[in-house]
């Protein structure tokens, strides 16, 4: 227990280094460029302390919970030896974590607004909500399928760069064919899909799979799941824009 707290204290100090750049940038621009005093300095200090404690707890939680959990799941599925269950799990993890992702909900609402203004859909509340919900389902399905494809790649040992290059070529082709209003939204949707709790789990799952399957290298085969999850939504949203 004692050791536990010593470790936490060390982590707390480490977070100082992680957060120093933000504090410096904001202070320099506020005082040096905009030449304004800091409003509510007390709030800022309380906030900064919360950020430090939060980050230290999160990192502790990574090492204790999220990483071992992801690797244990990978090991358990490999021991079970059923590819179908592994892929079902991958889809559920991708779809389930994305469909309720707050960043995606926010972007989908903004995207519906943009689409209504651009005349892609009728400018009515019902049409906007429908568009936003469809967009969320499309992105969540894309992330689910991305993890399925990514997990299958690790199991089979296919090299990742063919997929990524083919995916980018597809994005380029679809960009030319899709309506201009959807392009920015599609590109951004790839970035918002991977939440902070999902990323460590998915990374540990990939590395865990690569470790337990014979002939796979944890570094070259284990990473890449997150890349699939960022690329496939772009393809799907561009295609969605052409259908709507």
């Amino acid at each position: 227990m004692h050791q536990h707290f010593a470790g936490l204290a060390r982590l707390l100090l480490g977070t100082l280094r992680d957060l120093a750049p933000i504090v410096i940038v904001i202070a320099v621009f506020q005082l040096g460029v905009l030449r304004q005093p800091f409003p509510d300095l007390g709030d800022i200090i309380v906030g900064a302390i919360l950020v430090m404690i939060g980050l230290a707890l999160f990192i502790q939680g990574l090492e204790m919970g999220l990483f071992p959990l992801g690797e244990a799941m990978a090991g358990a599925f490999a021991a079970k030896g059923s590819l179908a269950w592994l892929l079902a799990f991958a889809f559920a993890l991708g779809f389930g974590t994305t469909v309720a992702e707050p960043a995606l909900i926010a972007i989908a609402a903004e995207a519906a607004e943009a689409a209504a203004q651009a005349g892609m859909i009728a400018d009515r509340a019902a049409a906007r909500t429908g568009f936003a919900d469809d967009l969320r389902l499309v992105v969540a399905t894309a992330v689910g399928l991305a993890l399925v494809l990514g997990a299958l790649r690790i199991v089979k040992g296919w090299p990742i760069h063919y997929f990524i290059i083919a995916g980018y070529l597809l994005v380029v082709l679809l960009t030319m064919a899709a309506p201009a209003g959807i392009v920015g939204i599609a590109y951004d949707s790839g970035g918002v899909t991977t939440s902070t709790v999902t990323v460590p789990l998915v990374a540990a799952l990939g590395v865990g799979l690569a470790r337990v399957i014979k002939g796979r290298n944890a570094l070259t085969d284990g990473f890449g799941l997150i890349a699939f999850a960022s690329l496939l939504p772009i393809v799907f949203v561009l295609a969605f824009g052409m259908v709507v």
Partner: protein
Amino acid sequence: MEVIDRIATALSTTLLDVLPIVVVLIGFQLVALRRRPPNPRRMAIGFAYAVVGLALFLVGLEEALFPLGRAMAGQLSALAFAVQASPGWRDFAWIYLFAAAIGFATTIAEPSLIAVSLKAGEVSGGAIDPWGLRIAVAVGVASGVALGCFRIVTGTPLPFYIIAGYAVVIVQTMVAPRAIVPLAYDTGGVTTSTVTVPLVTALGLGLAASIPGRSPLIDGFGLIAFASLFPMITVMGYAQWSAWRARVAARKRKEMARKEMTLKEDRQ
């Protein structure tokens, strides 16, 4: 206590966010695996740490840094208009600098990037330095966001930049050291998360709103795409540079050895 209220709210929203993950994990555990994982108590505590930590982290950011950062993004673009009535793209130098600085700083603090770089350090047996990886990614986000702001100011089309960026990524993929490629692709996806997205989006929307002829809804999007594309380039670039330095060092060592050999032969 307002802060405690906010922590409670943040905690409940974070719990709601992770609920689907917990349902999927427990569901598959019960239906498919039916085998107790090792150390379930410790894992559950760790999971709780991560969730509570994330909630505190978000409240702190919302309390301390986000309001200020958002306000600054707006004020800095106003600064360009204060100097000149119709500023050209050069008059937005402060914006580009702020974009680069805030892109770098928020990426260093990004929890999912910390997670992936810790994992990469562990998996590579120390060959990949987590801190070096994070700096390479942060440099990528910094240049991406700065270029994205330049694009909003000039109003040039987004696909042009993204397609050019993809071309660079494809070429680098063919020549960069093989081991780094999947990791580099992953960093593109993890950079844009809890810390970076809110500030960068605010910057894009504020900038697009303050420039005549730009629509926040159409031109405000796209900064996140820049922030996820450029880290791939810088991470592969960093690996290429390290490999090149290692080659040069190896060649130098070989030459030194050969010189010593010839010296010895001469003496004999």
